[in-house]
């Protein structure tokens, strides 16, 4: 809960083995170990996107990734999802290599664009990942009904995506991401394109869904209040090359409501994240002097 949590992070990884004998690696949902990412190495378009990322996310935890645009937070999420490969380092999801986790569909994913398939009805959108897993039709249908109930869109099962508002489309996208019952949900600014009112409503809905299902969430955002409102921990990243400059523990507990947004603890955490973001920029300017 202190601003010095970046040291906790370094400590938890450097002397991991003795310190974590009671919590074996298999229990953590995501483990990112010494990951660097370089795009187009050795060419004029060379970009250092991520540097020395170490992060452990426990099962059931909600973690927000925040940082200025271009800091590589989406890149980090895609590396966890095995949609991109780390240049160096290792990523474990549910104790497996990220690649294996993707093949096993261990996670669900949602993006800023809902990415709904406009030629499929809402329920058939939700059923697509199940179809690819080889579930039979009746089992798929039963599951999609369940998911629609979870996101409170039962009456839109046979609607087409264009008949839904932006917020409803994102709810369908979340239902689809959760359809195969993954323990991990990876989200890349899923509410970024929504208006403020819808956005706050969706945040509350997301927390309810995650509490109902016990899903672990990694949530990329560039909104400080959103990061704080949703997360147990906010991971703050510096501008390129992205490094983790701080981790803010949010002491709001699991049950949050609209009142949470007016709580003093909420504002304290917002301030803490803001300062960590500023600190990240300063550290970036002074890089090489204050290196780990």
């Amino acid at each position: 809960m202190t601003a010095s949590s970046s040291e906790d992070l370094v400590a938890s990884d450097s002397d991991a083995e003795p310190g974590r004998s009671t919590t074996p690696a298999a229990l953590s949902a995501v483990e990112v170990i010494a990951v660097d990412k370089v795009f187009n190495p050795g060419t004029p378009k060379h970009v250092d996107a991520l540097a020395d990322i170490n992060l452990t996310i426990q099962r059931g935890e909600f973690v927000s990734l925040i940082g200025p645009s271009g800091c590589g937070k989406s890149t980090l999420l895609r590396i966890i999802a095995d949609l991109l490969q780390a240049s160096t380092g290792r990523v474990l999801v549910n104790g497996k290599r990220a690649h294996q986790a993707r093949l096993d569909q261990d996670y669900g994913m949602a993006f800023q664009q809902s990415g709904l398939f406009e030629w499929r009805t809402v329920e058939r959108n939700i059923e697509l990942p199940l179809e690819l897993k080889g579930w039979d039709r009746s089992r798929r249908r039963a599951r999609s009904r369940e998911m629609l109930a979870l996101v409170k869109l039962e009456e839109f099962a046979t609607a087409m995506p264009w008949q839904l508002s932006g917020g409803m489309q994102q709810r369908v996208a979340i239902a689809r991401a959760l359809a195969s019952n993954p323990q991990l949900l990876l989200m890349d600014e899923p509410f970024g394109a929504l208006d403020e009112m819808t956005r706050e409503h969706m945040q509350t809905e997301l927390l309810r869904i995650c509490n109902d299902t016990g899903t672990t969430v990694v949530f990329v955002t560039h909104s400080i209040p959103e990061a704080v409102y949703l997360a147990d921990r906010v991971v703050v990243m510096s501008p390129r090359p992205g490094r983790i400059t701080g981790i803010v523990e949010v002491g709001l507990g699991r049950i949050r409501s609209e009142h949470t947004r007016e709580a003093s603890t909420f504002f304290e955490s917002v301030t803490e994240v803001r300062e960590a973001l500023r600190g990240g920029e300063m550290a970036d300017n002074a890089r090489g002097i204050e290196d780990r």
Partner: protein
Amino acid sequence: MSLDRARYIAVRIVPPLVFGAVLVGLWQWWVVAFDIKPFIIPRPTDIVRQFSSGFDFVRRASTVTGVNAFVGLVCGAVAGFALAVLTNRFKLVSELANPLAVTMAAIPAVVIVGVLNNMYALDSQLGRRIMVTMSVFFIVFVQVTKGLRQNDPTQIELMRSYAASPRQTLAKVRMPNTMPYLFTAISTAAPIAVIIALVSEYFGGTQDGLGTKIAGALNGRNKALGFAYVLGGSIVGLLFFAGSSLLEYVVVPWRRRRESR
């Protein structure tokens, strides 16, 4: 609902009909007022008279040309679509097929029809159908290739996150995304197919289609009959366009809805 329909008719159907009627009226007035001789430009009324009195002849010739165009349209669309999918899926096919498709489009149609007519029996329609196929093929191939590349990146990332195979991604995402392009191509190609079928009759072969009838009648004195055959050709072309639009409306409903919003 009925108000909507009334408005639709008033806005979308009446103006083009009025415009067309005005143009035909102007034509009639011009031919009469300036005393244009009927063997230069016939009167619309004479054309209509020839069309109705010789309707069976026009219909028979239109059927010959129409069937040629239709067979070519279907074969060309199937071939163009299939090859575009194959080139998207396999790099080697794409390296072989792309130059071939472009080359085919660059060959003047006239040459090919001449060669094809020599290859097949005199009473065969095959040469003409192959000609139409080749023209349609190129239009469909180019559009579908484009469509296969225009994908929502989020949808593709989602499919990767589902560990979908390339074949599954093709079937579930790329193909449906391509349908609007396919039907745009078919709507574009349909009237062209009629024109190619008609023109390719000018280069030998049987004398039973619209092309040879138009050429024959326009060379003779009865220009109005020639124009009656032209009218037959226009009707076939319009039917083709309407048919392909209807097909698009039925097969790609999501596009229709999105555009009408």
